[in-house]
């Protein structure tokens, strides 16, 4: 099989595997509910509602030029080529159109305009375990999921032992999947997906599941796939994996292709842009990443260093001060929990600063409120990090903004001893060695 792919690779190396031309897709975002404030209006709208509901539901499938407001272009005029055997990463913020692009290329949804040409057998992996049924055993689910992903029964037969072996759940292969832990289910599902042998593979963010050991196994498998001459389009938030696996990467922003280059170039462009576009002072009253249906309590965020200067760049070991301005109009908000989350470039939360956990003070938010959170001697590794803010009360999210702003950490003298050099791990631990204990 391997040699077969290699031969194929030589023949088709310069061929185009995927050609995308001016691809666009529009969606209608939610049908808006109308509010009525009189009984008569409510009754008359109820009487008219079948007709208007019908019109609304029809709109799901038809678009007029008039209704510009509730239409969004998930992707707009995207063009690129992927040569056979190339591994191309796609990066971008949530909602930038990455998944929509993969859905169009996997024929799950139609583009609105433009076209794409695909040359080869495609498998798409937008979710691990599509079609898994809890009542079926592991064995049955392997066959089911395998055929759903495009294998024939014969192919599953020949790879069955390998799949079971990879998943590491031999013992439970004849147990219904509902008795599996979620980790086991994911392993089994990924094991099936990992044994696909298409010419073109479209992968969406599926490696972010499972424990660290299994993730490493998946990444190893992915790099095996990517070196076997297959064409891969790989969407991820995990920048290191993009850099490790992909030859090239595309950056999508608000549905448009804004950068294309080697994986390293694109990633650093993306992260650099994140830093460049982020300021030490962020106005939050109209933030684009505010989750829907939350009120705007958060007004602004300032990042300060220990000299009280606004900045987005800190050295390891430096103090970071988060200064927040909040305001609750019309009511008093008593001691909510304010959460500042720090995310790394794989969009994983590294840590959270919770006002509830870290402080016993009570406070009211009335008209305007300023508060500060101090991060003593930041131990993070050099890199780019982003911030997410949540205001909670009784477990209910009152305000939530993702990807508020970004900051970077550069090499610094964390241990105050002027020693430089690389230490492995995701953060620098504090603490102390005692190197001369009495015998």
């Amino acid at each position, binding site marked *: 099989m391997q040699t077969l792919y290699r031969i194929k690779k030589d023949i088709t190396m310069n061929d185009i595997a995927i050609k995308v031309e001016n691809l666009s897709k529009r*969606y209608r975002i939610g049908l808006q509910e109308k509010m009525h404030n009189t009984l008569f209006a409510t009754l008359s709208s109820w009487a008219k509602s079948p007709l208007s509901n*019908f019109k609304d*539901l029809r709109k*799901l*499938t038809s678009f007029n030029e008039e209704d510009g407001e509730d239409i969004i272009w998930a992707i707009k005029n995207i063009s690129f080529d992927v040569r056979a055997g190339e591994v191309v990463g796609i990066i971008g913020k949530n909602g930038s159109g990455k998944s929509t692009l993969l*859905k*169009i*290329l*996997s*024929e*799950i*949804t*139609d*583009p*609105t*305009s*433009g*076209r*794409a*040409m*695909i*040359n*080869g*057998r*495609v498998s*798409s992996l*937008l*979710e691990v375990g*599509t*079609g898994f*049924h809890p*009542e*079926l055993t592991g064995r*049955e689910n392997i*066959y*089911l999921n395998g*055929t*759903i*992903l*495009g*294998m*024939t*029964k014969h192919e599953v037969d020949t790879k069955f032992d390998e799949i079971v072996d990879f998943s590491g759940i031999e013992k439970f292969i004849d147990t219904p999947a509902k008795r599996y832990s979620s980790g086991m289910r994911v392993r089994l599902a990924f094991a099936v997906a990992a044994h696909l042998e298409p010419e073109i593979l479209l992968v969406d963010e599926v490696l972010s599941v499972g424990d660290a050991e299994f993730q490493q196994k998946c990444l190893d498998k992915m790099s095996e796939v990517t070196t076997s001459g297959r064409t891969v389009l790989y969407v991820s938030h995990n920048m290191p994996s993009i850099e490790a696996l992909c030859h090239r990467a595309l950056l999508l922003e608000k549905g448009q292709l804004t950068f294309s280059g080697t994986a390293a170039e694109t990633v650093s462009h993306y992260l650099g842009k994140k830093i460049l576009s982020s300021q030490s002072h962020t106005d939050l009253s109209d933030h684009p990443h505010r989750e829907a249906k939350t009120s705007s309590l958060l007004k602004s965020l300032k990042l300060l260093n220990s000299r009280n200067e606004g900045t987005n760049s800190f050295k390891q070991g430096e103090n970071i001060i988060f200064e927040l301005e909040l305001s609750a109009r019309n009511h008093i908000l008593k001691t909510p929990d304010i959460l500042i989350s720090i995310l790394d470039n794989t969009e994983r939360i590294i840590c959270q600063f919770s006002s509830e956990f870290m402080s016993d003070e009570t406070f009211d938010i009335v008209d305007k409120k300023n508060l500060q959170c101090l991060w003593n001697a930041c131990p993070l590794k050099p890199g780019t990090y982003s911030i997410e803010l949540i205001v909670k009360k009784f477990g209910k999210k009152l305000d939530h903004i993702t990807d508020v702003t970004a900051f970077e950490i550069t090499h610094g003298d964390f241990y105050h001893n002027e020693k430089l050099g690389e230490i492995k791990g995701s953060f620098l631990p504090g603490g102390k060695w005692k190197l001369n204990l009495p015998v």
Partner: protein
Amino acid sequence: MKKIIESKKGLQFIDWKELFLYRHLFFFLVWRDVKIRYKQTILGFTWAIIKPLFSMIIFSIVFGKMAKVSSDGLPYPIFSYAALVPWTYFSTAMVGSTNSLVGNNMLSKIYFPRLVIPAIPVLAYLVDFVIAFSLLGVLMIYFGIAPNYNIIFLPLLILLMIFTASGIGMWLSSLAIQYRDVKFATTFLTQLLMYAAPVVWPASMIPEKYRIIYGFYPIAGVIEGFRSALLGTNPMPWDLIIPGAISSVVLWITGAIYFKYKERIFADVV
């Protein structure tokens, strides 16, 4: 293998070649449907018999004994059970098919010919049909009724029954995914359709001049055909079956076209 992906415009018909490529998937999805249907039930596949059997008992009491509805000279239990076997299949397959697309999370995750989905219950419920049918054999022995030569047409009637369920399934499932009203309507529509079909009463009650028009209700011919082939009271009712087959074909072709027309939006509205 080159493929062009672009916005599909206009009407299309079924891509048989593609469907053939996905036959393994189809087979496994039908198998899954059969396999999980009665999981974690005590009675398992006995449920396939219970529904028509208890309907038969109630109908025999209410319509046979109390209302004294004609049963073409047959014992009422077997008269109604012979109709309930195809009817139960038809109604469950229709409801299953209607609800097959709504909430189906595979639609937005993987590509395969969407036509497979409403066809799954149509095939999967055949297992129930066979089980219910075997009880019909037992009842025939009990009542001492032997099938006549018309039984050679039985496969044809079964095909017409499957074909009709499949055609209606394509229509209703693609309507239901956009207009959820359909889901509520079908539950009670099946009630109405049952009384419109010659299940509790014989088609011989229909005035002669309306018979052909009535025949355009496709399941009527199937039910009366079953009675004729197995119980042998009346000759094979071709005057019902032929119009039924015509409307079934029309339903199926228009259903397939409508389904193919709507299928491009399924992933966006599911």
